[in-house]
């Protein structure tokens, strides 16, 4: 076999795998829509999205996922309130302040956190955090928004931290050196130079962290409590969309209204994460040209 011939074969093999993975993804999306869209023959889109009652197994069934959407958005929002400061600040510490030895340890610990299986985290939330929350604040239940948010924040921190850190690392040295040369302190340099220069990367990190949190299933299934009602306080139970899909799909009769409704919930979730990813993409592209001008 000539070298040129082998080259061609190898090229084609790579092309096949690239096309195959895109193809599989495409097929999954097609499948999602094929199984989800039929529900809209039974219920209108607005009634499905904004209906307040989720009674898929009753007769007549009600397929309103508004409480599920609200549940998902709330736990994600609160998770971000915790994860964004912690993730970004730890990234700043690791990339700008920490000495080399601590930097290496912290980086690997945070990466380890990313590898923590979500079911383990869910179990921790259910068995340790929930009873503690309940006893400490004398609540009716420990399986609530706060608990789920804290667990999701733990999952989102590694994403936010490591991407933010990469962004901060990519800020050209010259910027910081110029800042120091002008007599700025380390703190002033971080706040006025490094963070603003890395802002697009940090925003991308935050949005990807949010996407991770909203799509996470196991944790919310185990610790959010699962009440399909609009919560009245942050200590109420909610049922985020992924939890509902995971809990019910196994026993929903094949191709029934309930089955289609769960797939349609999956479509809603798909669009939300897609929107997050598009925004992240847009931000990181928009500020792409920002970079070092020196050689």
């Amino acid at each position, binding site marked *: 076999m000539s070298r040129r011939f082998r080259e061609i074969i190898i090229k084609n093999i790579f092309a096949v795998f690239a096309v195959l993975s895109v193809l599989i993804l495409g097929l999954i999306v097609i499948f999602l829509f094929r199984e989800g869209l039929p529900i809209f023959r039974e219920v209108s889109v607005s009634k499905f999205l904004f209906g307040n009652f989720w009674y898929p197994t009753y007769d007549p069934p009600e397929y309103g996922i508004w409480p599920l959407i609200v549940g998902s958005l709330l736990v994600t929002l609160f998770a971000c309130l915790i994860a964004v400061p912690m993730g970004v600040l730890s990234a700043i510490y690791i990339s700008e302040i920490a000495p080399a030895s601590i930097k290496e340890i912290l980086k690997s610990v945070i990466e380890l956190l990313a590898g923590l299986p979500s079911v383990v985290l869910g179990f921790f939330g259910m068995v340790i955090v929930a009873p503690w929350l309940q006893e400490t604040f004398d609540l009716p239940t420990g*399986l609530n928004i706060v608990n789920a948010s804290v667990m999701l924040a733990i999952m989102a921190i590694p994403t936010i931290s490591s991407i933010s850190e990469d962004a901060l690392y990519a800020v050209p040295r010259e910027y910081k050196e110029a800042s120091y040369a002008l007599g700025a302190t380390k703190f002033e340099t971080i706040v006025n130079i490094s963070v603003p220069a890395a802002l697009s990367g940090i925003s991308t990190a935050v949005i990807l962290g949010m996407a991770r949190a909203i799509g996470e299933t196991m944790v919310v299934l185990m610790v959010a409590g699962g009440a399909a009602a609009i919560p009245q306080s942050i200590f109420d139970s909610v049922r985020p969309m992924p939890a509902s899909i995971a809990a019910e799909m196994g026993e929903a009769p094949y191709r029934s209204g309930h089955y289609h409704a769960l797939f349609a919930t999956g479509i809603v979730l798909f669009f939300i994460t897609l929107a997050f990813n598009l925004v992240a993409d847009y931000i990181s592209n928009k500020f792409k040209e920002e970079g070092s001008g020196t050689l």
Partner: protein
Amino acid sequence: MSKHLKQLIFVALCMFFGAGAAFAENIVIKGSTTVLPIAQTTLEAFMKANPGVNISLSGGGSGEGVKALIDKSTDIANSSREIKDKEIELAKSKGVNPVATVVAIDAIVPIVNPRNKVKNLNIDQLSQIYQGKITNWKEVGGDDLQIVVISRDSSSGTFEAWAEMVLNKAKVAPRAQMQASNGAIVQAVSKNRYALGYIGLGYINKSVKPLTVNGIEATLENAFSKTYPVSRPLYMYTNGKPTGQTAKYINFVLSPTGQKLVAKDGYVPVTGTTEAPKKGKK
């Protein structure tokens, strides 16, 4: 290289068709999602012991199963209720003779935290609580605490049975918490003195306190004699007396090995009643 590929495809095809030929004997099971776990675990064990038999299983609910039996599109119809007179008529008109075999008994027990002093609830109180009409334990003889209602997710068989026998098809309040398994309910109730949940009899352990319903304790004997109100037999229906592999499978479900699997799934075994009640007294 292309020669190797051809060989590979040939081998793959052989395996595919060869396997298809080996699984010539098919049993189709359809119906109740309550019976589904029993069918699932027993058929897995049965197929392991009898490699020549292929059993396909699907849910759909008791009604679907019976319908499929009448259409002759299934060999076994799982049902969590007795077949209705109308269905028998329809079956007879199509030359199908539904024969019932009780394979297990489903008993569902309300549970509370051991620190809760309530010992008994009647069906009506349970119904009111799950509908969100009674919201405080003091209304049913307990402390002045909010009741945290914990339910199974609405597509589970346990939920279905509870909705039917306790709620009489009324809707569970949306505020009720949803847990995805019997085990998760035990976990939640054992840690929460506000909570009320319900589980299959087989899942009770020391971390939770089972309540009596209408003053009757949930035991294997009471479930078996139908004095315990939240229990019901589970059926497998066949067209005429089961024959061939179908009979072999049903006999396996009723055998001690099969009934052990039934108990493991959290249901009350029907055969070996001399053994089973002793277990319940522990």
